[in-house]
């Protein structure tokens, strides 16, 4: 690869790539996003390659098999998108591939059985599917479209054009002004105005001349969240370009990509992208002939959720344990090696090129001020269509869960959503006390401030839908256990307080405790929130406190009635084999670890409830689903 000397050469390259791109060439884009990977997408992509080799067809133009990042509709994976036919095939298995090649690539016909269908309608094109129709892909524009390991594909689709525009047409101050007017707020969950952070860093660097550092926070520790992963794996250049523009605006020449250890593919894709960008001269010295120099270092996290906190990332990069320290001073004043440091979430950085491209006003037209722009969510849990979505802020929760998500299967539907991960909260669908408008619509607007008013947060984008079979006491307990393991242990309110709150919740889950304990737990939660040193501890009580606030009755059912209405908490439920369904196959007894199921073959088996530990193995193995929870 030859280094690109200036903006004109970059544009020339883009145009020649565009000209060389044949829109009539059949392309099969196989999704290698996290969900599809888990379903064997790699084997599907290999099947395509070998099927093409074996095919005796005479192609006018040889079909191209592309592997891409997440295409979004994870519950229907493996996804394969065919162009120019504009077909989306779902649930593709390696065995389906030879037929796809022959039918669709060779003969240009539609393979009906692999089309997505909903409520009796079959959909050919992805754009028509309700899941995709209500979304607005801005940041994810290239994810699922380009091959993330090929910088030319990214450039053809617009990568680095915003960098060129910033370097040529805007001064650093103008870039910051544009970001400020766009209203961009941190996408990692804090919702902090990005431009404000940038201005503080510039001001501090002016008072204390010396290096300014940039960090991309890719620690994404919230369980159930994979937005940043999808960006890093599917369109790594978006992050690189965002940081380049940020570097130009802030006078920074060194950036760090901090990616959690548990994302080896993201690390690999970013590593390749950085190398390719360097080879083209888009990272390094005198970028595009502008005189501006900038480079990126890739650092891996080491398995610590707390390293999503700004001062802990800095500690980790300096080679120390990820123990947060008091703020102020903030990283923009004294960060990495004491220098002004701007830390932004991966998704936040990926927004920057689009803000330059669309202009501040164009960007601010999306969403609802002061929550402008779009937000990426991982919509998961008890929802029909789960996956990666991007929506304008201000969309109603109802639209998100019911129209995009396809609703909640089951009789009682949507009980609550959990947002913001372990730092967030559990809020019910029916939201009565936020604004008159929301009360009237009986729903919640998904934006930073509306979500914050509920006591939860919008968070980084993990949105977990719960139904009547999910217990809020159990979920609150789950988050506390998660945080107890992730706490750095430095300060007492967090180290001991999480343990203390967990003791209460363990009691409730067993049906023990008193209603006064609920008040005590709320008081302890307040102490932990007030007394903790960093955001992990300060926000740890949120899931517990919001769940008590909105689902107090469910807690009281555990404590006073000794029942778990959702049928989850083991000490409060029993397993019983339904005699009307059981056919006496005996599989349950064979696998029961406590050997507490007995009966007559071909007649009926019963569980000794006193000995049963509710491990769930019998429910798993029963071919007739005869084991009931009572």
């Amino acid at each position, binding site marked *: 690869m030859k280094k690109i000397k200036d903006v004109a050469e970059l544009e020339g390259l883009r145009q020649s790539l565009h000209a060389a791109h044949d829109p009539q060439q059949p392309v099969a884009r196989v999704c290698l996003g*996290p*969900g599809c*990977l*888990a*379903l*064997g997408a790699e084997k599907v992509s290999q099947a395509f390659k070998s099927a093409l080799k074996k095919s005796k067809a005479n192609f006018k133009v040889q079909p191209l098999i592309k592997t891409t990042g997440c295409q979004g509709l*994870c*519950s229907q*994976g493996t996804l394969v998108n065919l162009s120019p036919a504009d077909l989306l095939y779902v649930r593709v298995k390696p065995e389906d591939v030879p037929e796809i090649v022959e039918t669709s690539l060779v003969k240009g016909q539609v393979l009906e059985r692999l089309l997505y269908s909903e409520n009796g309608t079959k959909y050919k094109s992805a754009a028509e599917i309700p899941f995709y129709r209500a979304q607005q892909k801005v940041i994810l524009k290239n994810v699922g479209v380009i091959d993330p390991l090929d910088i030319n594909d990214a450039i053809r689709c617009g990568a680095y054009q915003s960098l060129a525009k910033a370097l040529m047409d805007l001064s650093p101050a103008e870039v910051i002004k544009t970001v400020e007017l766009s209203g961009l707020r941190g996408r990692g969950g804090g919702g902090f105005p990005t431009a404000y952070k940038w201005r503080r860093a510039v001001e501090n660097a002016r008072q204390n001349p010396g290096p300014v550092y940039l960090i991309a926070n890719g620690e994404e*520790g919230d*369980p*159930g*969240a*994979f937005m940043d*992963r999808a960006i890093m794996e599917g369109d790594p250049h978006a992050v690189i370009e965002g940081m380049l523009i940020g570097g130009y605006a802030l006078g920074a020449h060194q950036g760090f990509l901090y990616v959690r*250890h*548990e994302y080896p593919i993201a690390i690999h894709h970013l590593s390749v992208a950085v190398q390719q960008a360097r080879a083209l001269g888009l990272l390094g010295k005198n970028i595009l002939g502008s005189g501006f120099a900038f480079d990126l270092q890739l*650092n*891996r*996290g*080491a*398995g*610590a959720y707390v390293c999503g906190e700004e001062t802990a990332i800095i500690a*980790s*990069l*300096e*080679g*120390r*344990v*990820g123990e947060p320290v008091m703020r102020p001073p903030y990283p923009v004043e004294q960060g990495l090696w004491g220098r002004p440091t701007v830390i932004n979430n991966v998704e936040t950085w990926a927004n920057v090129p689009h803000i330059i491209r669309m202009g501040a006003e164009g960007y601010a037209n999306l969403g609802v001020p002061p929550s402008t722009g779009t937000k990426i969510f*991982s919509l*998961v*849990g*008890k929802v029909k269509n*789960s*996956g990666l979505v991007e929506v304008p802020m201000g969309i109603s929760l109802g639209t998100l869960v019911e129209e995009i998500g396809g609703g909640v299967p089951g009789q009682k539907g949507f009980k609550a959503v*959990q947002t913001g*991960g372990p730092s967030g909260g559990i809020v019910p669908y029916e939201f009565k006390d936020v604004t008159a408008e929301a009360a009237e619509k009986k729903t919640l607007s998904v934006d930073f401030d509306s979500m914050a008013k509920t006591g939860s947060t919008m968070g980084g984008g*993990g949105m*977990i839908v*719960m139904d009547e079979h*999910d217990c809020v006491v159990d*979920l609150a307990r*789950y988050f506390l256990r*998660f945080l107890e393991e992730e706490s*750095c242990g430095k300060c007492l309110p967090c180290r001991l307080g999480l343990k203390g709150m967990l003791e209460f919740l363990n009691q409730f889950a067993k049906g023990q405790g008193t209603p006064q304990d609920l008040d005590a737990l709320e008081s302890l939660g307040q102490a932990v929130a007030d007394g903790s040193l960093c955001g992990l501890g300060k926000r740890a009580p949120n899931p517990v406190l919001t769940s008590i606030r909105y689902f107090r009755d469910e807690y009281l059912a555990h404590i006073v009635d000794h029942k778990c209405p959702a049928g989850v908490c083991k000490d409060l439920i029993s397993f019983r084999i339904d005699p009307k369904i059981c056919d006496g196959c005996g599989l349950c007894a064979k*696998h029961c*670890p406590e050997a507490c199921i007995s009966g007559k073959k071909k007649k009926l088996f019963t569980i000794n409830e006193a000995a049963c530990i509710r*491990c*769930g*193995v019998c429910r*798993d*193995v029963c071919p007739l689903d005869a084991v009931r929870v009572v």
Partner: protein
Amino acid sequence: MDGKKISKADIDAIMERYPRHPQYLISLLQDVQAAFNYISPDNLNLVCDYVGVPVTQAWSIATFYKSFSLEPKGEHEIKVCLGTTCHLKGGENLVEACERHLQVERGQTTGDRRFTLETVKCVGACSEAPVIMIDKEYLGQATLLGVKQHLKKL
């Protein structure tokens, strides 16, 4: 790793990838962990001498971060995802079932060093919850029987 003789040349080759500066301590330890499956006392001492940090600092780091282990890991790593969705879909039951089957607690390695059982959050495959990873392979909508079958093949 069992059966493989580790020479000083191997560890030297790893260390030489990085400049001698404390900021590379964690990256270096990660390479050592990946190459040898654990961090031995000898290697920890060599690394902290190389980058120039006190051994107390290296010890804190090796014990603070979950990605490092001071004991050799098993030949195969079984990672049960306990992300939120996997938890809601019975991930906890799955971990307990694996604990009973392998006769170890989560975070531990079997006596014959064949299997290490761990929990992770989250692998990002939430639509297939509950998910188990055995080495690099994913088992979506995992059940204990499915896991047992897969382990038998190893």
